[in-house]
């Protein structure tokens, strides 16, 4: 009797209803604000001050999008953001994969210390480092370039990515790496051809972290790249504001345009990178 009850419960837990509920919770939680922005982007400004508030736009309009593209060079912002984020993600992944491998696999004497230093780096609030960083960038003659942002963003994401990857690499059976070395790989070869692909979920996560960190950052982007042609999206979107005015619908439209590429990227990557993983490599 009790087992029957337990098993019904269990089925409920593993079965379709749970999955449906789970999906509902996840999607509402995650997408609601984004959805709200999407809806807003089709509303007129007047509709926003209606009471009671409206959920669906009364008279959906694309005007906000047209305005978003015509008022500011939105595509330029997008392109800059994209390139900066992409470059810094690539650099972050490269550097942190190497560092994480060292931390995970080599029996370093000062492992704890190195970890602490890496973490310490991320504990200084960015605002307070702004001016000296600006001076550094000026000294390196990097102001007004993608590099001016790529480098600091890389540093910004490096600690978290390194630690995430370290904990992943520790979970990869060493024999897989051994097999690769026997098969003729150097340690680097084994790292990039076996360890990294096998930590795909971790690398993917680290990549997303780095990408989004770069995609979102505002303060440095504002200060280091004053050239309008080099503005990134977060800085660019602020330009839709007036000195006092905050045109939600247009800004929403710009935000939607900003989120969509990230979303597409996420979807593509998650299908490609994360799915292929299977078990069955080693006994143990």
């Amino acid at each position, binding site marked *: 009797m009790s087992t029957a009850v337990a098993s019904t419960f269990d089925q409920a837990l593993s079965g379709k209803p749970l999955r449906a509920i789970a999906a509902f919770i996840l999607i509402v939680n995650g997408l609601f604000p984004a959805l709200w922005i999407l809806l807003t982007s089709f509303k007129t400004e007047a509709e926003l001050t209606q009471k009671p508030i409206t959920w669906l736009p009364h008279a959906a309009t694309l005007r906000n999008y047209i305005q978003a593209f015509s008022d500011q060079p939105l595509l330029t912002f997008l392109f800059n953001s994209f390139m900066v984020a992409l470059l810094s993600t690539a650099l972050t992944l490269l550097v942190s994969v190497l560092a994480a491998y060292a931390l995970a696999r080599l029996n370093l004497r000062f492992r704890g210390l190195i970890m602490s230093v890496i973490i310490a780096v991320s504990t200084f609030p960015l605002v307070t480092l702004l001016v000296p960083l600006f001076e550094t960038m000026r000294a390196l003659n990097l102001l007004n370039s993608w590099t001016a942002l790529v480098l600091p963003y890389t540093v910004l994401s490096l600690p978290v990515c390194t630690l995430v990857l370290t904990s992943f690499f520790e979970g990869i059976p060493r024999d*897989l790496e051994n097999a690769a070395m*026997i*098969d003729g790989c150097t340690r680097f070869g084994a790292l990039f*051809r076996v360890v990294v*692909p096998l930590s795909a979920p971790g690398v993917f996560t680290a990549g997303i972290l780095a990408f989004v960190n770069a995609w979102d950052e505002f303060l440095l982007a504002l200060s280091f790249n004053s050239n309008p042609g080099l503005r990134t999206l977060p800085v660019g979107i602020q330009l839709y504001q007036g000195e006092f005015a905050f045109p939600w619908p247009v800004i929403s439209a710009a935000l939607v345009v900003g989120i969509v590429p990230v979303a597409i990227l996420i979807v593509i990557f998650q299908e490609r990178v994360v799915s292929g993983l*299977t078990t069955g490599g*080693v006994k*143990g």
Partner: protein
Amino acid sequence: MASVSLRKLEKSYGAFRVVKAIDLEIMDGEFVVLVGPSGCGKSTTLRMIAGLERISGGEIRIGDRVVNDLPPRERDIAMVFQDYALYPHKTVRQNMGFSLKVRGANAADADNKIRDAAEMLGITHLLDRRPGQLSGGQRQRVAMGRAIVRRPQVFLFDEPLSNLDAKLRGQVRTEIKRLHQTIGTTIVYVTHDQVEAMTLADRIVILRGGDIEQIGTPDQVYNHPASVFVGGFVGAPSMNFAKARTTQGYLDFADGNRLPLAGLAGAKLSVADERELIVGIRPEHFMPLRSDVGLNSQVQVVEPLGSDTLVHFAVGGATLTARLPPELRPKAGEAIKLGLDPAKIHLFDPETERALQ
């Protein structure tokens, strides 16, 4: 192809010495089989030869190079791992082709080699699956295939056939033998299978707790075990051991059974010697009632194997096992008289447990 020589090779994990200063010279093209109880250091030794395990002392040479500090890929070896270590993210084909690809082999050529190896191992239809979609034995064959697509200087096989059925194992064994005969690569092979060890090996190395207990040809190891340990370890079912005394030209067992000393294998025991001995008798050397030299006992357990019947019985306080023809099926409790050829009896010193010359 190259010789492999281990000189005072050591490995410790912390204070625990897993491999204790072993010396082993493997000649170019030789097929050496490592056997020994679970945990005695066989895999560790292979892994040190491969360069996967830092050695704690001694020296390893492959050919005339000391390879102590050489990374695995420069040692030009191929290895089958005991735990397979297949790349879970690659298909069987990619798993097998990986070493070729890394070494920049021609693609068509590589494909041929993969096809050949897969055919030999009967996994051609699995080439596009991933390890997670294979059965245990199939995985093991993939691991095997991954090693043999290459033509390295040395093959290291760590129980490569343990998950295969007898028939397939026989086939693959034959293929390995053929492979070895054709290309003559040096092979170090770990196995628990008596048949594999006996049929494949040029020499068998018996390890025990990190030490080498005996090195010899299969024949030497089987017929002239250097110690009780080797006698007991090589051969299945194991050699039987019983304590006995020499008295007045006889071997006396505690329960009154006795065997005449004359004719005992290489027995340089003078009739006058009166001493304790350990007597070793292989199960297959018992014969039902056909010799005048014999032991009387009672059947304890009977295990019919189809091809043989194993009969367990007690002599001198020890339980012995005889391998008898399958048509003999004594019942438990029955009295039994078993004969044996005195020349086939092994004698060991009870203190050192080493064979008496």
